[in-house]
């Protein structure tokens, strides 16, 4: 039910040419030069160690791999990870 509503909202935002992340709070990931990742509209931290951070999102799971990973700032909607990032997986 919730998924269908979300898809409808996505379609509506598309038809109105609105940015989806702003309209429906879609997941947004920014990677800065392999040393910092910004994740917006997350749903919380699922797993965390020096080499991997697993972050929950609305309909996705974000997995950040690397070394010496550290969360430099986190609030209810944004999460900023720093360290040596090797890959970001979205599933």
């Amino acid at each position, binding site marked *: 039910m919730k998924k269908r509503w979300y898809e409808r909202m996505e379609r509506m935002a598309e038809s109105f040419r609105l940015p989806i992340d702003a309209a429906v709070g879609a997941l947004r990931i920014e990677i800065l030069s392999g040393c910092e990742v910004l994740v917006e509209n997350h749903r*919380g*931290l*699922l*797993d*965390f*160690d*020096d080499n991997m951070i697993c972050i929950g999102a609305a309909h996705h799971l974000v997995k950040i791999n690397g070394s010496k*990973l*550290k*969360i*430099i*700032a*986190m*609030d*209810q909607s944004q*999460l900023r990870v720093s360290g040596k990032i090797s890959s970001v997986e979205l599933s």
Partner: protein
Amino acid sequence: MLKWLIRYVRGYTAVQVTGAYPERFANVLSKEGIPFWNLHRKGKALRLNIFTRDQKRTASLADPDNQILFDPQKGMSKSLRVFRGRELLITGLALAVLFLMFSNSVILRIEIEGNVSVTDAEILAALRDLGVDIGTVCRTVHSQWLKPRILLRIPELSWFYINITGSVATVSVRERTEAPKILDEDLTMDVLAGKSGIVKKIEVYRGTAKIDVGDTVLEGDILISARVESPFAGERYVNAAGKVYCDTWYTVTIDLPLVVYEKQYSGHDKTIFDLIFSGRRINLTILSGIPYEFYDKIQLKRQIVLPGGYPLPFIIEKTVVSEYNLSEVRLAAATAELSAKKALTDLLKETVGSGGRVESVRILSSQTESVLSLTLYAHCFEEITAK
């Protein structure tokens, strides 16, 4: 850098979370809106930093399965903790700092240099009229603006400058030197009689004497003429010079009232205190009105000085008002006559000057009910020439 500074000023503490699923703790903190940073794994534990003020709330949010350890606090708030319970000390320190900042921005002392005949009080009064006094804010004092205004108020000054160093205003002045009166020796000029009298002695240096010994001259008569006649050079005009000594007579009458009004102090005094700061006057006395009809007023101004001689920009003005009544006093005729005679004799000596002498003096007195009349008759010998 800015973030670090904000965190340092606000104070922060490191938290170590151990137990099952410590990641949940980070989620709970973000959900509750508690800011944290530097989240990293240390062994099995999770470490993060929070602001000191969130410490209690963080501890209450911890899951029962998790164990939380707080590191000692860091940042400025820890340094400021030593002042806890010493609010008076902090207030005193803050006031001292504020006072130092304030006292450096106002004039606390005015020093005057370079004046000889113009008194300090005259210069200070002129400055006060123009808004410069103890307590005036230094940056509002502009020497260029003051200079023409001060020179207009005190014509005896030719130059003025005010230099403010710290809270001391140094006023430098130069007084005007009057140009000497130059007499042109080439001008043709007669010597006239300054007073009336009978000529006793004539000394002619230049010119022709128009009088002889024994002649009577009136004030304004020509004594020595500028016109010189010579059988060889003919007629010519010179700057006449010479001295003419005469017998002169003076008659001076004065009327002295025998009934005068004298002040009789009633013994009722009133003291009024005012605080003067930066030209503003604050009345410190309740009911400061003066209830007396006739009174004398004595004002004393005193700058407040801290122990050690450090002046403050406040002046306490003490005004003592003394009531008096006017009462009629009848002077003793003999005493009044004596003092009047002395006054007349002094006046005569001043008129004759140091070059002449008083040959004889006679003072006659007559008295009505309220007036004593004295008439002085004097015979003098003096020089009467005038250009």
